[in-house]
Structure formats: structure tokens, C-alpha cells
């Protein structure tokens, strides 16, 4: 197989980085809270991709394949579920009070 086409860990890392950047741009520039939350999911997924790629690279202490990265990815998915549930809960409470879903209108801590 051609060396250029061989897929190494770095390929996955670059892809992860690209997704991470897209997520960062989304979080920093969009006004709609739902899309901001989705961008956060993108970031978390980019991290997950890196972790799983690393887990293939990291052979464990005795070279038996310890899969720590994959376990981390599972924890991150758990975390993402919790984040989405609470985030969307806040969003609904926010929408009920202000009738808007734009982040830059959340400039009061109290209303």
C-alpha cells in the first residue's frame, strides 16, 4: 500500500482537530443556544476521536492493549448526555421566561 495513503494516527488527529475547530467557531460565533450546544457536542466528539485513536496507539504497559482511551471516550459520552440534558433543561427554562433562544440576550442573571 502506498505510504501516502496509509492511514496513521495522525490522520485521525488532524480530523479531530478540524472538528474541534469547527466546534469552537460554532460556540464562539452563533447566537442560537441550540446550535451552540450542538457545537459543544462537536467539540466533545473531536476529543473522543482523538482518544480512541490514541487508545489504538497506546499499547498499555505490557503491550496487551489496555483500551484506556476507549473507556475515556465512554465517560465523555456519558458526560455529553448529562450536559445535553441539563443544557436543554436550562434552555427550556430560559425560553419560557424570555421567549428567545439567543445567547447574547442572556445578559441578566436575574429577571
Amino acid at each position, binding site marked *: 500500500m502506498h505510504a501516502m495513503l496509509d492511514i496513521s494516527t495522525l490522520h485521525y488527529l488532524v480530523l479531530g482537530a478540524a472538528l474541534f475547530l469547527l466546534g469552537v467557531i460554532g460556540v464562539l460565533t452563533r447566537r442560537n443556544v441550540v446550535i451552540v450546544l450542538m457545537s459543544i457536542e462537536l467539540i466533545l466528539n473531536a476529543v473522543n476521536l482523538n482518544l480512541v485513536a490514541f487508545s489504538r496507539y497506546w499499547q498499555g504497559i505490557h503491550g496487551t492493549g489496555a483500551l484506556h482511551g476507549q473507556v475515556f471516550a465512554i465517560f465523555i459520552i456519558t458526560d455529553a448526555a448529562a450536559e445535553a440534558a441539563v443544557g436543554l433543561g436550562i434552555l*427550556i427554562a430560559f*425560553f*419560557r421566561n424570555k*421567549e428567545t433562544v439567543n445567547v447574547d440576550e442572556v445578559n441578566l442573571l436575574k429577571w
Partner: protein
Amino acid sequence: MTDPRSLSPLDLETPDQTFLDANELVINMGPQHPATHGVLRVILRLDGEKVMGLECVIGYLHRGVEKIAENRTYTMFNPYVDRMDYVAAVSNALGYCEAVEKLLSVEAPPRAQYIRVILTELNRMASHQLWLGTHALDIGAITPLFYTFRDREEILKIFEKYCGARLTTHAFRIGGLQYEAYEGFEKDVRDFVSFVKPKIDEYEELLTTNRIWLERTKGVGVISGKDCIALGVTGPVLRASGVQWDLRKAQPYANYKNFDFEIPTGQNGDTYDRYIVRIMEMRQSLRIIEQAVEGIPEGPIMAKVPKVMKPPVGEVYHSIEAPKGELGYFIVSDGSTQPYRVRVRPPSFVNLQALELMCRGQLVADVIAVIGTLDIVLGEVDR
């Protein structure tokens, strides 16, 4: 419960604000909808699945029956009443004929009255069977529909043999009957009674103790007897709320006082009780039919009625217990061949008033169940 009459729809407090305090969902159920039994249009205001309010829009089947009556002679108007409650055409005709007979101060001969009772009670069976099938279909049980239609077919066959029509029978004439009972009428009716008795048990087997049926109907669309009376609701709906009011007993007409039968009543006024009351009414109808068929007297079938009917000036109100409730005819005569005014008190129209009271705060699925349990026929609501 406050008296519903004292409240306008706006005064009725909504059970809950919408979940998001925001846009409530307004959906338009009907006039083209599989479960509004014709062309009823219900505008539902929903919070998710919960009904916050509803409004019935009727009139899609309005044919001006009452106005037509003013331009027809008494005899000519007779077939029109069949088109109101078209699933219980015989009852409509009975009410109209008796009202005009009252106006003319004649009475149908006993034999005619017995045959009238048999046909009317058969029609009550047919109406209840149709109701049961469609009601069960609305709640999602599709099989009872085919069972009830299979058995209703036997009734329609008897009608067809008797007067040639199956649905809009025009079975009675003012003053009695047009046709003598055909050869073997009694046998057919007896056969039908023995045929249908086990079938009613069959319906009950499918539904009465079915857990899902119980959950879907118990405590759904509850209406108290007091509210029923306040809203003028009659028929099985009223009786299921515990009020023992049946015009066949309360104001006996057409020889009903000669028959021995019971008025089934419920206690809770919910959909399940209405179902049970109607099932029991079917059995009572069979009982009346059995008695009537045993005791058909011989004799004439037509009273002495003038060819050109000119009732004396005056007015009359006559009501009968149609399958759906009190069916009343108010006829004003100015002494001419045509009625000056005919006003029909259709049971479906009046019963439909209770819909909002019964549905408020319930779920969308219950609206369907309640429309079904009210047993409305739009031909009668809109006239």
C-alpha cells in the same frame, strides 16, 4: 360544579397553562377526519396532548329540513325525517307520525302500534350496534365493527323485506302503516332475536373486561346527572349518569306501557357506563321485541285519516325515546295542508353541547372517545 349555563366559554377556567407559557396548539379536527362521525368540525386548543378547550363547528350537513317542512304537506314531509338520524330512520318516522297523529287527534290501531314498536326497537338495536362498532373502532379495536355490522345486516334485511328500503325506510304513515307485515315477519323477528342474543355476549367478550378498553373508557368524559339535566342531555348518556329517565316509561307512547322492560342506568357517567347502558339497552330491546312479537293483535293497520290532511289550528309537541335520546317534534298548524312551522328537537344536537364540558382537561384521545360515546349523527345535528 357550577351550573354550566351560567358560564360563557370564556369564563370557564382553563385547567392549566401551556407547558411553555407560549403558543398553544390549535388543531382542526374535521370536517374531514376519520373519527368525527361525518362532518363534525372540532377546533381543539391543545397543550401538548391536553385539551384546554374546544369548539364545535356544525352545519356542514345542513339541508334545511325544518324549512322544507313548511313547503310540504304533512304526508309529503314524512320521508324527509328519515334523513335526519339516518341510522335510526324508523324512530324519526315514529316521532313524526305520532306528533301529527296527536295534532289530528287520531291514534294508530293496536296492530300498527305493535309493528311500529317491533320495527323501532329493531332500529334501536341497529343504531346501538352501529354505535358500538364505530365507537370501538375509534378507540382502536377494529374487530367489533365487523361483528356488529354482520349482525346489523340481519335487521336491515328485515326492514328491506318489510318496506323495500334498508336505511331510510319510510316505514310508517300518519295514522298507522302503509304495509301489512309480510308473510313470515314474526318468524324472521323471532329468528333474529335468538340469533343476536349470543352475539351481544360476543361483543361483551371482546370489550367489557378487556383491560385496555377499561382503561380507555373508565373515568373518561365524566358528566354528572345534574349537568346532563342542565344541558338537556338525554338518552343513554343521561341514564349512564344515574338518572332514570326514559320516555318510554316516563311518558309512554305507542303502547310501550304494555311491555315489561327495565331502564338500565349507570352510576359514574363515564364512557364505560354509557357503553354498558347501551349494551343493556340492546338486551332490553330484544325483550320488548319478544313480547311484541308474541302479542301482535289482528286488526286494521291504518286509522281513519283524511286523504287531505288539514289539522286544526294549534300546536303540538311530541317526543319519543330515540336511540340517541329524546327526539321531539314541535308542529304548529295554521289549518292548512302544510305545517306552519316544524321544529325538531334532535337528541344528537343537544347532546353535543356536553362535549366541551366532558372533554376539557382530558387528552386528545379522549375527545375521540367522547365524540364516539355521545353517539351523534351529523345528519341530525345539522338537519
